[in-house]
């Protein structure tokens, strides 16, 4: 039986084999080969695809290269979502490697946020952490930390340093015994069949009477269609970090162990594969 700390490592070091192919209408001086990369599930596309940009830069003129953006089967990929979430949501049950198409023209202004520097990614990441702590601890833990601690969280993610990251993040995972858990659980539930990007609401890990809420309880409240009725057919898979956790798993435990580095549980609800 895996130790809880092992779970943290497994989540951090998850990788997705990906191939990057240049969009056929991009203007090149000679043919561009695809580029292969193992993407960290817990990171962000714009943080880890510099090599992809450099690879295609070799066969393109600078003036033909606007801001790079990525797309999977016609869907622009939101760089501000963690990579693992994007994969679970869009390509879960397809064959590996994940085939992503690379663009340098016609940036889809209505779909994607701009990402002009790593500072934008850092600001977004820290903003998520701050929001998660607002839910868990009314923001007290993150606000009492020094600037250098905030920086360490970011540097840990940027440089793939598990220990450096968790030295600070463990403080964001603490709670008092009397409380029995966080104030509210930071989570977002995503599905591709709705205009609404995600469901996020207030939800406590423990009831006033002291009962522990499970993943199933969360889904029943927020997205009841995702919970299979006893006599019904399973219509959806509920996926976090590429796995389907048992619905009886306590939500507090999930929040402490299966959150992304931004401290949110990003949960994908995807239709059952038809084969």
């Amino acid at each position, binding site marked *: 039986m895996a130790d809880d700390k092992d779970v943290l490592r497994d989540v951090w070091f998850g990788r997705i084999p990906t191939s990057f192919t240049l969009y056929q209408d991009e203007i090149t001086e000679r043919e561009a080969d695809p580029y292969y990369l193992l993407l960290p599930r817990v990171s962000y596309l714009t943080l880890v695809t510099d090599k992809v940009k450099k690879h295609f830069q070799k066969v393109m003129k600078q003036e033909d290269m606007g801001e790079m953006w990525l797309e999977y089967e016609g869907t622009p990929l939101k760089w501000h979502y963690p990579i693992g979430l994007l994969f679970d949501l869009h390509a879960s049950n397809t064959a590996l490697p994940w085939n992503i198409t690379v663009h340098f023209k016609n940036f889809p202004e209505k779909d994607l*946020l701009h990402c002009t520097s790593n500072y934008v990614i850092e600001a977004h990441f820290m903003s998520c952490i701050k929001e998660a702590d607002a839910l868990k601890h009314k923001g007290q833990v993150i606000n009492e930390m020094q600037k250098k601690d905030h920086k360490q969280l970011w540097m840990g993610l940027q440089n793939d340093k598990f220990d450096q990251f968790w030295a600070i993040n463990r403080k964001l995972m603490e709670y008092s015994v009397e409380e029995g858990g966080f104030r509210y659980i930071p989570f977002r539930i995503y599905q591709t069949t709705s205009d*609404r990007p995600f469901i996020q609401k207030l939800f406590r890990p423990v009831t006033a009477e002291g009962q522990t809420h499970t993943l199933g309880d969360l889904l029943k409240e927020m997205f009841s269609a995702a919970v299979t009725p006893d006599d019904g057919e399973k219509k959806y898979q509920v996926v976090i970090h590429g796995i389907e956790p048992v619905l009886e798993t306590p939500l507090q435990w999930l929040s402490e162990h299966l959150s992304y580095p931004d401290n949110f549980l990003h949960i994908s609800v995807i239709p059952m594969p038809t084969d």
Partner: protein
Amino acid sequence: MSRDWGSAEDVCLGEQTFRLCCEEFIQHSRSINDEWDWEHSQGSEDGYMKKILLKAANGSTPPAWDDQRNVQGEKGELELEAQHGVYEELEDPGAGCSITTGPEMTRYEYHVVYSSSYQSPVLYFRACKLDGRPLSLEEIWERVHDNYKDRLLQGPWDTITQQEHPLLGQPFFILHPCRTHEFMTPIIQAAKEENRHLNVITAWLSMVGPVVGLALPISYATAASKHKTAPD
């Protein structure tokens, strides 16, 4: 970055209160044709307040609109922007108004959305030229009055950033909401102590709106003070 959030506890804006305040706000908006409306999010009970504005850079206002400006002046509209020479506000040309569509015309869209994480409203906004070209962060920033720029530059949590709209999934700009409690707390406390009805949305929007080109006619405040019962 050490802030005491303890005091924020008693001035949280619950979602119910948010809706009630918005209802009251929109009621008044309709009475003065200020064009705020409630939009429902597809397939759910959630929603947000929305307003669209057409603006021209100062100096290129067509003469036909001078009368409009005078009427608005009589209503006591906050003319911060006019005074500082940033923008003249024009009404969205509804039915039958002809308006010069010069290159300087910009369409602004404002949404007031509830954040359950911060238990406060958040102002989402975006702008585009009439040909559909969206304004960039730099262009938005240019249009913020210098006085506000100083305040915005004071901290990373006060600035304007691009963010995904939580109900529409599209890129918008926001003023980060985590400091809302700081400037709202004294206002809410004062109203409580004086046993005065306060529409939190009106008070909040009158503070943050002008920073991004959105003015509120004073009649919102006078309308609110006529209410006998305060929503909880």
